[in-house]
């Protein structure tokens, strides 16, 4: 029954999103009661230099907001957080914890969760709706990420770069795991298809000095150097780029625009920098973004808005929208059934999820159903639009 009416019902989520938005500025709804709806949150903290604690902050703010505004279909929301500690064994244990606690879905992001935790939650039919970072999360049958992650980010950035008329590009990628695959499939192939001359340079994560790799990537004076590294290494690459006088524009994932990443970096490097954003968290006149910022202020000790906290906030709120629609039927299985057939699900602070239109990588369909991205840059230390307020998709 849920499957039959899901398409119709879920389009109504658009309206529910608006209701949620108005809820913050209006009066608080009745206090939720009954059995809590449990939501698993995968995140990473406690590892200096690799802190994704903002993911939990965003999910907690969304939960607090929901619990102050009728919860999900009148039931309170309870988070089941699990810090994966960048450790495969712990990630596996996180998956087991989610199964034991009976969560309806898992949100958030964990670098090694996909390869280790997802194998545990998949047999239990628990959908993963967090940010995908590993191919496992792009391909697993229970993976229905509300946001596209790197699979959507880099093709969108390639499309944006092509639109800027670039002729030469270099890709400096992490020499680990699927780094080369990502560099080739997500960036190099679409750029080459657009007539761009591409050079790829591998470098290990946490290299002692990024200068040699950056010099190699900078040879031949490319127009853009794409960086497939985490925020921590971005900071070091930016600094080395300033020292060797890189003239090319640098392009990186959205987390590389965080304040602490660009602190102390040559302003000339920052000026040309562009990145992706999966949500509209930085947009001033967007109602949902406004709700997110207010919720952070009220429920998260005035935490600064960031791409990571916005991502998890968006995931919990989107989940709440679907849960409201499913009502008493809400469970991991019903949610999964809904996600399998749904189209037009409005993603909070984002666009829409369409299960009928998966992104294809190297000719094969993935479980990425939302490929829209914004391209952003920094102006006076603030994240601003770089692409005239347009969503961009590397798959459309």
């Amino acid at each position: 029954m849920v499957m039959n009416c899901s398409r119709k019902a879920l389009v109504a989520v658009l309206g529910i999103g608006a209701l949620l938005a108005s809820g913050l500025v209006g009066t608080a709804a009745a206090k939720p009661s009954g059995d809590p709806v449990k939501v698993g949150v995968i995140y990473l903290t406690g590892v200096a230099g690799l802190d994704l604690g903002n993911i939990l902050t965003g999910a907690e703010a969304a939960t607090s907001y929901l619990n102050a505004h009728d919860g999900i279909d009148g039931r309170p929301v309870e988070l089941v957080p699990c810090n994966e500690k960048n450790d495969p064994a712990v990630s596996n244990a996180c998956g087991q914890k989610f199964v034991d606690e009976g969560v309806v879905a898992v949100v958030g992001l964990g670098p090694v969760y996909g390869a280790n935790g997802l194998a545990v939650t998949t047999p239990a039919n628990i959908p993963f709706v967090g940010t995908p970072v590993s191919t496992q999360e792009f391909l697993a049958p229970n993976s229905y990420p509300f946001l596209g992650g790197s699979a959507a980010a880099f093709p969108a950035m390639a499309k944006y770069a092509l639109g800027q008329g670039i002729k030469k590009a270099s890709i400096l990628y992490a020499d680990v795991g699927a780094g080369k695959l990502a560099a080739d499939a997500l960036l190099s192939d679409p750029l080459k298809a657009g007539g761009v001359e591409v050079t790829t340079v591998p470098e290990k994560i946490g290299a002692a000095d990024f200068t040699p790799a950056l010099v190699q990537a900078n040879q031949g004076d490319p127009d853009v150097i794409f960086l497939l590294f985490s925020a921590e290494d971005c900071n070091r690459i930016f600094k080395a780029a300033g020292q060797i006088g890189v003239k090319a524009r640098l392009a990186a994932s959205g987390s590389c625009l965080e304040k602490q990443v660009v602190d102390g970096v040559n302003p000339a490097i920052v000026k040309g920098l562009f990145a992706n954003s999966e949500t509209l968290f930085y947009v001033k006149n967007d109602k949902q973004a406004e709700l997110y910022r207010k919720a952070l202020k009220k429920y998260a000790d005035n935490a600064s808005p960031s791409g990571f906290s916005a991502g998890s906030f968006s995931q919990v709120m989107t989940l709440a929208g679907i849960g409201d629609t499913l009502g008493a039927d809400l469970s991991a299985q019903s949610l999964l059934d809904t996600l399998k057939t749904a189209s037009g699900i409005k993603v909070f602070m984002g666009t829409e999820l369409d299960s009928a239109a998966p992104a294809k990588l190297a000719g094969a369909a993935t479980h990425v159903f939302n490929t829209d991205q914004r391209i952003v840059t920094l102006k006076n230390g603030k994240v601003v639009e770089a692409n005239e307020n347009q969503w961009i998709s590397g798959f459309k």
Partner: protein
Amino acid sequence: MHDVLLFAVLGLGAGAVYAILGLGLVLVHRGSGVVNFAHAAIALFAAYVFVDLTDRGLDHWTAFAVTLVLAACGGVLIYFLVIRPLREAPALARLVATLGVLLTLQSLMPIVFGLDARTVPSLLPSDPVEVLGVTFGRDRLWLLGITIVLTVVLSAAYRFTRFGRATQAAAENEKGAILLGYSPTMIGAANWAIACSLAAVAGILIAPITSLSATTFTLLILPALAAALVGRFSSFSLTALTGVLIGVTQSEITRYQGELPGWFPQQGLKDALPFLVIIVAMIVTGKLIPRRGTLSEGRPPFATPGLIRPRWVLVGAAAVMLGLIVAEGSTTYESAITYSMIAGIVSLSLVVVTGYVGQISLAQMSFAGVGAFAVSKLAEENGVPFLPALALSALIAVPIGLLIGLPALRVRGVNLAIVTIGAAVAIDSFIFQNTDWSGGFDGLGVPKPTLFGWSIDPAAHPQRFGAFVLVVLIACAVMVCQLRRSDTGRRMLAVRDNERAAAANGVNVAATKLQAFALSAFIAALGGSILAYQSGRISFQRFSPLQSIFLVAIAYTAGIASVSGGILAGVLAGGGLSFVLVGELVLDDWYGVISGVVLIVVVITQPDGMAVSWSRLTRRIGRLRARPHDALTEVDVVQPVERRMTVAQGTR
């Protein structure tokens, strides 16, 4: 040619980083005979202190001076609390203790300094400089210059000063040094103070380049260890030169990697190639039999007789099955119990190679990884049934074990430990992280196991799978017990105690070592392949070199020379039963700190491992019950056992 020079110059920065850390490792080893795995963590901690002091308003140079003083005090503290109590202990015990320091410091840093990224003020001018037509940061050249100066100063100080000669004397013969009027304790403390100050200098100078990153600093220790290994942990100049050469080589690989033929494995080349060269160099220059003057290490952990007590086996098996039944419905506990048994199997491989033969192998998780990936290839891709897949994947690891065992024929002690970790890095970089072979981050799938048509899928039937793992664990434990009591086992213990004496008595030392490596690779791979079935999907992160290091640390504290110690190590392993139980009791943030401290305390107080100590305690209580009025001392109980074994087996 221009590019060769260009990239050689660009590699000097990273090379200087490896060299300066390598100098600290040599300094510690010369002063106290310890290979300090915590050196980079000490450097990082000091850099954090420096940043914290500057954030509190101290000017850079005052903060630098204060940090050096604090680092020196920290060095003295580590020496007296951790290193000195282990002065007589074997090299492996001291190495494990430094792992305890590493774990403690790494876990303390986020608690003390927070998780926010911190900007490190640079004491060196970092403006651009142009050399050979390429522009880069001037700080790289400064760092190289400082490294050269430090190398010259340290070489001269330890060669020409009284303190240097006293250090040399105390390192070679403590009693001799005492007779000459030197205090080995004071010399050791002073060397640790200097080494930790040097670590602080390194941390503060390189942090602006590397950032305050635990990941980066942890990785830096490996090339630094390789450099120190080439310098035989005694030559400052050779160590510094090797460190710089590793940096230059990696930089050259960056330039020419893209021009290599497509069939050549390129992923991880920069990590692995320097290690492979060093391993070959060590094998070529090593000695088949140690020289006459080679100093014997402290007493290795007591190798228990390997007696099998059926009653205890039955009780243990019943306890495991009861645990699996009680835990039904809790995936966390079911999985933790089964994982403990799998980790126990892998730990038993260490009992053979390290406990019985005394060869420190830091590559056991690599063998486990070979088994895990092999089982995926065999079962998932080629449809090989469950039991044959397990057996074949374990057998596939045997030639790899023999290959990694080859250096052991010529390299010993901690040097072998570093060679094996080099091999582990090479396997990790070339094979495990290669997307074509191992699926990269996503890993490879493993089918659901069935046994004679009966599903033992760990997700659907955790008790059945747990029972199967229990049978394998018991089989492995019995096999290792039998080995201990066999002629081969006695030869192994003879080699462990004195290679020259064993060879003189007709023991084929080389064959014995290779047998141990082959068997341990088989057992570890068997554990790895079962782990693959338990996980359903297997990826390289589970088998990283660091996982191997921590497995050795856990096995040592549990009792690396006893079968019960190997099984206990499984219970204590990360992801195992104690990990889950303690994780629920202890504050999450403090788990690492407490683990590190416990590791140090156990290494110091229980040199034979927790399992052996427990066994002695229970035996003693039993005797006390039998003879309440005639309490025995530990000496009464333990020494006769060891004496009997010595007489009967001609070894210890």
